[in-house]
């Protein structure tokens, strides 16, 4: 079956990256362990994120038209890759379910308390399924359209908070009261995995990128922008609520938005904020979903669109089953997911892949060298060779 090539432009990649990183990170808030210095931790995390995305480009430059699974195949053959892919699909779908659950919890807590969360997740996943049935291009364009609104609303929120006088910048002090260690610890143990490590899902997106020349630059800008927004929102939360209150909030941004009150007219923005958050969650959930679909496409050699609707129902189902209650959900997110899922899938496997690629390419290179009597191989011809495979 012929699998069609889809195109994603650089600007679309940028918006996807930003939405993806904001996604559920802004729902539950990140870097809370660093208390007052969460924003610093996020900035540091952003540096890690830039490192991750640069590491990705190692693969992207070598295998411009291949997604992660195909690179695996290049190294270890199709049979073992299918197993790896299957595990990855489970990972992606599980994370996607968690993202949807995050949002569902937010909705059920803040907006529609009496409606069953199943309803929210079902409608949400149907929409995701519909959009991915239309294709990743459509998702990218949708994200492109909504991103300006996202920015606009964040800006407005900041302005409104400022105007309603709920900001007390002194709450940021003491900066680094406990020293740098909590910041570094938060950045490396928490933020490196969530949200930055989750960019592993982009390993299937880059293959569809039209203009790979500037992709590194654009990616870095994307990660940087998202980091800035996250950091600014962390600052907003701290200076409006206070670090203590942020730590006690399930959804800090929501609590922050509740503070807005200007002249008895512009107030009660929390419902609106939820809907803005929804866009980010939507993109993030869909991207994990898409990564899973791409894996299925690889295994079954069928266009991924066929899987969109059934698998969306799986996500809907498991976003509900994933945890019994909110505490379970949070505990799982803190205790289990980073160690048993994020670490192996974001760090171990990609690193193994990296070593394999190095080894394999060296092997090819030496083979070549043997054939051509030690003539110098230029890098470009070498890449071409690998592409052919």
């Amino acid at each position: 079956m012929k699998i069609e090539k889809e195109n994603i432009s650089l600007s679309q990649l940028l918006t996807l990256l930003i939405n993806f990183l904001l996604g559920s990170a802004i729902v539950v808030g990140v870097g809370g362990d660093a208390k007052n210095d969460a924003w610093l931790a996020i900035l540091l995390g952003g540096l890690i994120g830039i490192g991750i995305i640069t590491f990705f480009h190692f693969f992207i430059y070598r295998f411009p038209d291949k997604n992660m699974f195909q690179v695996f195949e290049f190294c270890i053959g199709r049979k073992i890759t299918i197993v790896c892919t299957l595990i990855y699909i489970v990972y992606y779908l599980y994370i996607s379910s968690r993202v949807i659950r995050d949002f569902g919890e937010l909705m059920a807590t803040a907006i529609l308390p009496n409606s069953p969360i199943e309803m929210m997740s079902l409608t949400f996943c149907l929409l995701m399924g519909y959009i991915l049935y239309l294709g990743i291009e459509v998702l990218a364009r949708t994200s492109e359209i909504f991103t300006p609104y996202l920015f606009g609303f964040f800006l407005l929120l900041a302005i409104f908070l400022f105007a309603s006088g709920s900001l007390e910048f002194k709450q940021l002090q003491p900066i680094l009261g406990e020293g740098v260690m909590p910041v570094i610890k938060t950045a490396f143990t928490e933020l490196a995995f969530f949200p930055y490590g989750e960019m592993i899902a982009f390993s299937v997106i880059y293959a569809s990128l039209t203009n790979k020349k500037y992709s590194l630059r654009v990616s870095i800008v994307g990660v940087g922008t998202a980091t800035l927004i996250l950091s600014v929102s962390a600052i907003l939360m701290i200076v409006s609520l206070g670090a203590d209150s942020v730590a006690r909030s399930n959804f800090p941004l929501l609590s922050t938005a509740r503070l807005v009150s200007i002249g008895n007219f512009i107030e009660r923005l929390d419902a609106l904020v939820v809907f803005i958050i929804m866009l980010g969650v939507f993109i993030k959930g869909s991207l994990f979903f898409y990564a899973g679909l791409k894996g299925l496409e690889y295994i079954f050699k069928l266009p991924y669109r066929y899987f969109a609707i059934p698998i969306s129902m799986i996500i809907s189902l498991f976003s509900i089953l994933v945890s019994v209650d909110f505490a379970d959900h949070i505990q799982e997110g803190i205790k289990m997911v980073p160690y048993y899922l994020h670490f192996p899938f974001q760090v171990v496997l990609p690193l193994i892949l990296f070593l394999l690629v190095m080894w394999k390419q060296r092997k090819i290179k030496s083979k070549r060298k043997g054939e051509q009597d030690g003539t110098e191989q230029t890098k470009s011809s070498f890449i071409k060779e690998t592409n052919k495979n």
Partner: protein
Amino acid sequence: MVTFAFILLVILLTILIALFDMSLFEFSFFEAMKNILYSEIAIGRYIALFGAVLGLISSVIIDFRIHRSKKESNADERTQG
């Protein structure tokens, strides 16, 4: 194929969640499964079930369609050849 993928993924994800529940709640495997299966109550249960059935049905339909289109394209090739 789609149906197969659907069922396979449901099973794999259930196992994953069960494993997590086992270590979090210190359940045995069967307790964990029970926990998953009985966590939904009243209307939520029906909606969840509805979603799952919907997914299953749609995957069967899609499979059927793929099958049919394959058959047709095969037939076309034969007539052409």
